[in-house]
Structures are given as structure tokens and as C-alpha cells.
């Protein structure tokens, strides 16, 4: 566990979460959400929970992004709020 690395990843995590919430284009939000999942995967791998990081890399950064994109393309692209 490297504290500096942790803090850097956590800062980027918070940034990615805020961007994913505030972007009007839902496709861009889906992509930022994928980045969020990948950062969480990095954080877990760095803290030693490799199994969880593996799951997050496949589910969070991989498949769920595709599912969200598929949903966005079949509904509306823009957020209203």
C-alpha cells in the first residue's frame, strides 16, 4: 500500500465521479463511468485485493460500460437535468 499513489487515484476517482454526474451527453458520461471503474480496479489491485480488482476490471470497466452504452443508444442521448 503506497499512500501517495492511493491519494492520486482517489483524487482522480472523485473527479471522474463528478464529471460522470455533471456531463450532459450521456454517452460521454458512460465513458467516464468506465474510467471510474478502471480507477477503482487500479486502487484495489494496488491495495492487494487482486481478485476484486479482476472482477472490477471485467465487470465495471468492461461489460457494464458496454451495457450502459447500449442502453443510452436505445433511449435518449442527452440528459435533461
Amino acid at each position, binding site marked *: 500500500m503506497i499512500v501517495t499513489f492511493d491519494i492520486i487515484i482517489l483524487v482522480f476517482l472523485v473527479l471522474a465521479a463528478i464529471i460522470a454526474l455533471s456531463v450532459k451527453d450521456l454517452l460521454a458520461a458512460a465513458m467516464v463511468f468506465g474510467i471510474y471503474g478502471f480507477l477503482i480496479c487500479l486502487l484495489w489491485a494496488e491495495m492487494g485485493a*487482486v*481478485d476484486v*480488482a479482476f472482477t472490477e476490471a471485467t465487470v465495471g470497466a468492461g461489460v457494464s460500460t458496454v451495457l450502459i452504452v447500449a442502453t443510452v443508444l436505445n433511449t435518449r442521448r442527452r440528459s435533461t437535468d
Partner: protein
Amino acid sequence: MKAKIFASIAVVITGAILLYAVIDFPDFGDPGSPPNAGVPGGAPAASRYYIQNTYRDSKVPNLVTAVLADYRGYDTMFETVVILTAGISIFAILRVVRRDDDPSAPEPVASDRTIDGDHHRIIVGITCRIAAPLIQIFALYVVAHGHYSPGGGFQGGVMLGASFILLALSGSLRETLARFSERDYTRLAFVGILIYAGLGLLPMWVGRNFLDYGALSGLFMTKGEEMARSHSMLGVEIGVAITVMSIMFAMFANLSTRGRLQGGL
């Protein structure tokens, strides 16, 4: 605007409560924390038991897999059932079956995109065709090697499903559905659960508890109960992988076509 203010207040309050709860957490890797040292006069230390006994009990070096598939077998089984339920609910909400839809009829031209007819998709299509078998081989390695290295049924299953999703995204959904049809993935999803529950039920045949894999040493022809537990974990992981793979692809196929399984993204 008003909704946004209320939402922000709710988020801030929840976050503050969560942060307050974090104060009570033990430090990262603290040897004196309750899971590592036990409660004085109460429960013994869980992590110490797993660390000391897992290899002796089941000859599995990866403690995470041993805890997931053996010690906490019920938990993992019903997690898999949860995934199956998610797949069933997506099917129930989205899938559209019309009687006048002839599944053998050719699709409309605009959505019938194949790799070979469209030079914009050749590079991506060919690369994904090369990459998909590699991903599947790695996924099988992850499933089969789950006791010795990080990985296991969930991860391998998601990767297998992702390889089919990749084929459907880069080529056409119709070609992928011709190889892995709706009938196949619906059946496989249940087959996975049946493998898990069946392996759990087999020990009851000889009068042991549900999911007590040690009783299967006769079935797997191993010398001791330890290797029987290890082999059963592999079988259980295979069941989980089959279910997860099928459900992932089913979710994508239903979500990307609004449940018609025609056209695709």
C-alpha cells in the same frame, strides 16, 4: 432545480454518515482488528482460521477462492442465482416476441451489417475476430486456474461473455446469435446453476451436509477429502462461469436491440 437541491442535501448527509462510520474502521492490515484477532471472550478470529487451515483442508493456495466456493458456498450459489434472476428480469421486461416475426426471414438491409461488405469495419472486425478466441482461451485459463491465482468463475464467465459481446459489436449480432443462440444461452444459464446445486446435492446422497464437498472423494477418485474439495471447487467455478457468461450475453443482446434480437448496435 428544487429536486437538485434536495438530492444534494441527501447525498451530503449520506456521505457524512458514511465518513463518520469509516472512523470506527480498524486500520488497513491492523493485526488487532476483530477479523484478525477475534473478539475477546467471543468469536474466534475468522481470518486466522482461513489462513492457517485453508491449505490443509482443501489444498487450495488462493484463499479467496476457497472462502468463496467452499467455506461460503451458500453465499456464492445464491449470488449466482441473483445474476440469473437479473437475466430473467431483463428477459421479462425487454424481450419482445411477436407471432408474425419470422426468425428465418432476412433482416432489413440497413441493419444487416456484415464485416465483409463494409470497408469501414474491416479493420475492427478482423482484429476482433482474432482477439475473441484469445480472450476465450484466457477466460478458460482464469476459470481453471482460479484456485492457484486470482480469478475464478465470475471473472472468467464475464470475460467469456465479453468475447461474445465483442463479436456482436464488431461484426453483426445476427452472426453471433447464429453461433450462440437464444435457446443456447437460456439453457446454459440454468445448466450452470444446476451444476453448482447438483455438486452441492451429491454429498447428501451419502448422508453428508449440502455443499460438503469432502464426501465426493469417491466420485473424483482422489485419495483424501482435500483434493475432492479442490476438484469440487473447480466444478462449482465452471458452473458459475457458464451462468455468468450466458447472462452477460443475454443482457447485451436484449438491451442493444430493445428485446427484438434483430439489428443490433
